[in-house]
């Protein structure tokens, strides 16, 4: 099995005039991985994705896909295909012609095209829709056409820019499940861009969190949620309460901190960074808190309080 990264991004930079969209990004993505770039609006996710696709040229750094440098390789010669935010399904072609479009560029034989288009339609659950006009499709169906059109070319990497943002909540959840299943089936590396952290956590094998053009953390959904490396990541992923504290004792199995108003709390080693400043900030996920009866508390892991308000 080949474990070399399929995508190697090394110190890639891109500015638009005075705006630095991507700065010094270094990232490896493994073959077959479902990788997600997540971050707030304007953090440079789309720009990074478009540099992978070949629509933008980096100001510096290198991008290698499948071992080949992509410098100077135009978008139409790259082993990547893209699903656009609004799907960009060509309105003047039938669904089948849309899917066959890339195969024709690749000079695939006519007989083979028909078979592969059928196969691709079946793969996205649109068998029998070939003759339809895109205007007669719903948003979700158009997205499937865009997926089929890209995957039919058997790219090494599929790039997806906010593919769910145009769908309503219910359909989005359904398409998320389908997208994940599809990725497992075809085994193609997916690189997804989203600003929805929940979507990132649901779909991905690994996630890169981006802020203002740089990558703040790359981790699995579990690690990202349980062990965010910085306050900004913790704040962006899920809900987190922040409490300022003073470090007191550090022992091999944990660290005891003094939290204002709560007293001393011991944090397990795995949840605490090795070198803590004097005034660390403790973050706690609301679902990790349990309300106990008075007198049943465990020492060092609980604090007294009173219930002020209740919301479902």
């Amino acid at each position: 099995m080949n474990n070399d990264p399929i995508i190697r991004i090394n110190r890639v930079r891109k500015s638009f005039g005075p705006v630095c969209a991507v700065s010094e990004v270094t990232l490896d993505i493994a073959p077959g991985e479902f990788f997600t770039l997540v971050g707030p609006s304007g953090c440079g996710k789309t720009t990074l994705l478009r540099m992978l696709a070949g629509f933008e040229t980096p100001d510096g750094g290198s991008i290698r896909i499948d071992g080949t440098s992509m410098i100077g390789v135009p978008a139409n010669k790259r082993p990547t295909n893209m699903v656009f935010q609004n799907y960009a399904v060509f309105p003047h072609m039938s669904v089948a012609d849309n899917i066959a479009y890339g195969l024709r560029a690749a000079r695939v034989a006519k007989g083979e095209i028909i078979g592969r288009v059928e196969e691709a339609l079946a793969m996205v659950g649109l068998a029998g829709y070939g003759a339809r006009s895109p205007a007669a499709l719903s948003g979700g169906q158009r997205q499937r056409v865009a997926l089929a059109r890209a995957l039919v070319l058997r790219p090494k990497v599929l790039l997806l820019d906010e593919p769910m943002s145009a769908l309503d909540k219910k359909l989005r959840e359904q398409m998320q499940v389908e997208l994940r299943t599809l990725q497992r089936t075809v085994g193609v590396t997916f690189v997804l861009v989203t600003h929805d952290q929940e979507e990132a956590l649901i779909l991905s094998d690994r996630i890169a969190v981006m802020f203002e053009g740089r990558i703040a953390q790359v981790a699995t959904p579990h690690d990202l949620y349980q062990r965010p490396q910085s306050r900004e990541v913790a704040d962006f992923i899920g809900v987190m309460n922040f409490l300022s504290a003073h470090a007191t004792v550090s022992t091999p199995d944990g660290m005891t901190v003094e939290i204002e108003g709560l007293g001393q709390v011991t944090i397990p080693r795995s949840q605490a960074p090795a070198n803590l400043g004097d005034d660390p900030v403790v973050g706690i996920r609301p679902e990790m808190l349990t309300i106990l009866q008075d007198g049943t508390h465990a020492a060092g892991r609980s604090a007294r309080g009173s219930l002020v308000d209740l919301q479902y």
Partner: protein
Amino acid sequence: MSIRSSALLSLYVGFFLIFLYAPTLLLPLFAFNDSTIVAFPLSGFTTAWFAGLLDVPALHEATINSLAVALTSAVLATCLGILAARATTRYRFRLMHGMLGLIMLPMVLPEMIIAVAFLVVILHLGFSLSLFSIILGHVLLCTPFSVAILRTAFQGLDHNYEDASTDLGYSRWATFRLIIVPMVLPGVVASLLISFTISLDEFIIAFFLSGTETTLPVYIWGQLRFPQRVPNVLALGTLLLAISLGLMITAEFFRRRGLRKLGLSTQESVL
């Protein structure tokens, strides 16, 4: 609004429309009138004036010239329009607005000025006047309309379609041919039809720049000197009016269909 002022307004609109269109409506009316004198009362119905058009060789020549000039001007203006519309909607560059202003200028420039300027330049350069000089003038006149129509068509074009086509393996030129052109085609047809109509009707430039060969409007102008030919001219005018109207309606139909295809509103018109 009170009833009185609304009645006044209707009256105003009524008069306005009569002034605007009544003279034009008289044209077909007298074209079918059985008398050489263009005056009321009408004496009877005839299609003789239309039939009479068939046996005037000079008229046939002028018609062929006009069609050739209009066709060439429409194609040239539309080609220029495609280039300008594409450049000014896809790319941002310095002096773009200034350039657009210059392209649009002939729309408001008096035709007389354009005609005289062309005449002076062509004669100074030592060229003789021909249909070709008329075409030059007409291209200048039609290009702004072509650019206006095509810019709307190109503006409705999402960049993502081009990116998607490139991404799927096509070169820029193939993308232009296979994606961009079909998507703006209704706009191209509208531009061709409008340019054709403008050129077909145009008089001043054609009058100043025609050498031995003339176009239809110039021919009509020449015929007005002979009173007995006036009903023939009216019949010819009626035909031209019908053709122009038909072309304009077709052009607007294509333009709207193009916008609808791109999912845009068809409410406001460019012209």
